[in-house]
C-alpha cells in the first residue's frame, strides 16, 4: 500500500513538473514591436555602458552648458539650490553617514549626499540627465551636451580630470567612490530589526 502511494505520488509529481515546464498558451494580443519602433523609446543606459549613444563631451565644454541650463536650480558650482546638491567630494575617506562620518565631521554641519560621495554609477548620471533634465525642458539636451554635463559633474566631484572626455567608451570605466558601499536588501521580516 505504501509503495502504491509512493508510485502514485511519483507519477503525479512528474506530471506536475512537465506541466510546469510548458507555459500556458499565449492569449495572443498585441502587435509585434519592431526594432524601429523600440529604438526611440529605448533610452536607458546600464552600468556596463549598454545603451550609451555615440558622442562625447569634456568638463570644459560642460561648464558653459551647466551654467546656462543647470545652475539656476543646482547652484553655480553644483552646491544645490532649489534642486539637489550635485557636487561635493568630501568626505573622501569615509561614507557621508555612520559612526566614522560623525568622527570625521566633528562639530561641522552635515555635508549633502552628492554624486561624489553617494552615487554608485557614473552611467546613471548620463541616463538621468538625458531623460529628465533640465527640469524646464526635459529631454532637450543633445547627446554631446549630456556627455559634457556629465564630464563637468564628474570633474567637479574630483572623480575625473577636467580634460577627460566622456563617451560610451570612457563613461562605463569611471569608478565611483561610493560604489563598494552598496549592498542588497537583507530584510526578511521576522523578529530582527534591520
Amino acid at each position: 500500500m505504501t509503495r502504491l502511494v509512493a508510485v502514485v505520488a511519483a507519477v503525479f509529481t512528474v506530471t506536475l513538473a512537465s506541466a510546469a515546464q510548458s507555459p500556458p498558451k499565449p492569449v495572443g494580443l498585441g502587435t509585434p514591436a519592431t526594432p524601429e519602433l523600440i529604438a526611440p523609446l529605448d533610452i536607458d543606459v546600464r552600468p556596463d555602458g549598454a545603451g550609451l549613444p555615440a558622442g562625447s563631451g569634456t568638463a570644459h565644454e560642460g561648464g558653459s552648458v551647466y551654467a546656462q541650463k543647470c545652475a539656476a536650480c543646482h547652484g553655480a558650482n553644483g552646491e544645490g539650490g532649489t534642486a539637489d546638491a550635485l557636487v561635493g567630494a568630501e568626505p573622501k575617506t569615509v561614507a557621508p553617514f555612520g559612526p566614522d562620518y560623525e568622527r570625521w565631521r566633528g562639530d561641522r554641519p552635515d555635508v549633502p549626499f552628492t554624486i561624489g560621495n553617494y552615487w554608485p554609477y557614473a552611467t546613471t548620471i548620463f541616463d538621468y540627465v538625458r531623460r529628465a533634465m533640465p527640469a524646464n525642458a526635459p529631454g532637450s539636451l543633445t547627446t554631446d551636451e549630456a556627455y559634457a554635463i556629465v564630464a563637468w559633474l564628474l570633474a567637479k566631484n574630483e572623480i575625473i580630470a577636467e580634460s577627460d572626455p566622456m563617451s560610451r567608451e570612457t563613461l562605463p570605466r569611471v569608478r565611483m567612490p561610493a560604489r563598494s558601499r552598496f549592498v542588497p536588501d537583507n530584510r526578511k521580516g521576522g523578529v530582527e530589526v534591520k
Partner: protein
Amino acid sequence: MTRRTLLTTLSAAALTVTPDLARGQDASPLDTTRRWGRLPNELGARSAAERPKRTPSPTSSRTPLQDLHGTITPSDLHYERHHAGVPVVDPRAYRLVVHGMVDRPLMFTLDDLKRFPAATRSCFLECSGNFGGQREDVSPQELCGLTSQSEWTGVMLSTLFNDVRAQPRATWFLAEGQDAAVMTRSIPLKDAIGEAMLAYAQNGEALRPEQGYPVRLLLPGWEGNANVKWLRRIELGDQPFMTREETSKYTDPLADGTVRQFSLVMDARSVITSPSYPQTIEKGFVEVRGIAWSGRGMIRRVDVSADGGRTWKPATLQQPVLPKAHTSFRYSWEWDGRPTEILSRAVDETGYRQPDMSALRQVRGRRTRYHLNPVTGWTVAADGRVRFALQRVRA
C-alpha cells in the same frame, strides 16, 4: 409643474437656505420633510458638510487618514507622489512596449490590455519616504499620509510575460513611465512576478490621472516609487539598470557605512488615526482607532498602550484581514482624565514587530530617510488636548 420649473424652484429654495446653514443661525433647523431635495443627477458629490482634503506640496499630496473610516481610500483622496507632474495621456494614443530578453517583443494598446484575463486586488500603496513626525502639531495626515489603499484591477504581469515569452535568462525588468521624468525603476523579476499587475482600474473605474492613467505597474507591498505610473515601456534584462531612483534616491544609508539598495518591501506599520492631533478628547469612553499594514503579508496583531508603553493590550482587528492591505484596528479605552500617551504597535504574519525609532536608528543611523516605520502615538494632556508624541521618535 414641469420638471424645469420644479428644478428652478428647488434651486431657488436652496439658495435662500444656504447662507443660514453656513452661518448656523437658523433657529428652526431646515426641515427636510417639508421640501423636496435634489433630483438624481449624473455625478455624485460629497455632502457639502464633508470637506476632506489632501495636503499638497510641490512633490506630493497626503491622504487625510484622520477623516477616513475603513480601509479603502476614496480615489480623489489617494496620496500623490510624482517626479515631474501629472502627464495628460490620451488613452487612444497609449501604447505599452515590452521588449528586451523576450522571444516576442510586443506592443499593446489599452484595449489590448483590457482584453487580457483580468484580476482584482485590494492593497495599500505607500511612499517609502512616509514619515513626517518632526513636530508636536502634526496630524496623522502629516505624519504618514503617504499611504492609501485601493481596489485595483488589471492584467497580471505574468500573463503578459507569457505572451511575450520572457526568456529564462531575464532576471530584472525596467519599468518606465511617460511622465516628463520618464521615471524608471528596475524590478527583480522573480520576486515580483507572483503578484505584479498592470492596473488600469482603481476602485471600480479607470485610474485617476495622478495614479498613472491609463496604466500603472502595481507591486503589492512594495514601496510606492517602484509602482511606475503612466507605464510606457518594460524592458527585460539580466541585471538591474541602476537608475537614479534606485541609486541616489530610495536607498538606505546604514549605521555600518553601507547603503541598502532595492529595499522594496514596506515593513509593518500602524498609526492611531483617532484620537490624534488636533483633537481634544473628554473623560470617559474613547474608541482608539487606526490602521495597520505590512508589505510582507497579513497583519497578525496590533497592540495598543494607553500608558506610554508600560502595558500593551491587543486591539480588535476588523475582518477580513487581507494581505498587504490596510487593516482597521479598534481599542476601547476609558480615559481617566490624567495626562498620558497612547501608542500602537503592529505585528505581521512573519513575526515582525513594528520597532521603536531608537531600534531603527541603531541599525540605520541618523541620516537614513526612507522606510521609517517607528512606533508612534499621541500625548493626551490633562485638558484633553492631543498632540503628536514627539519624544517617542526623537531617538
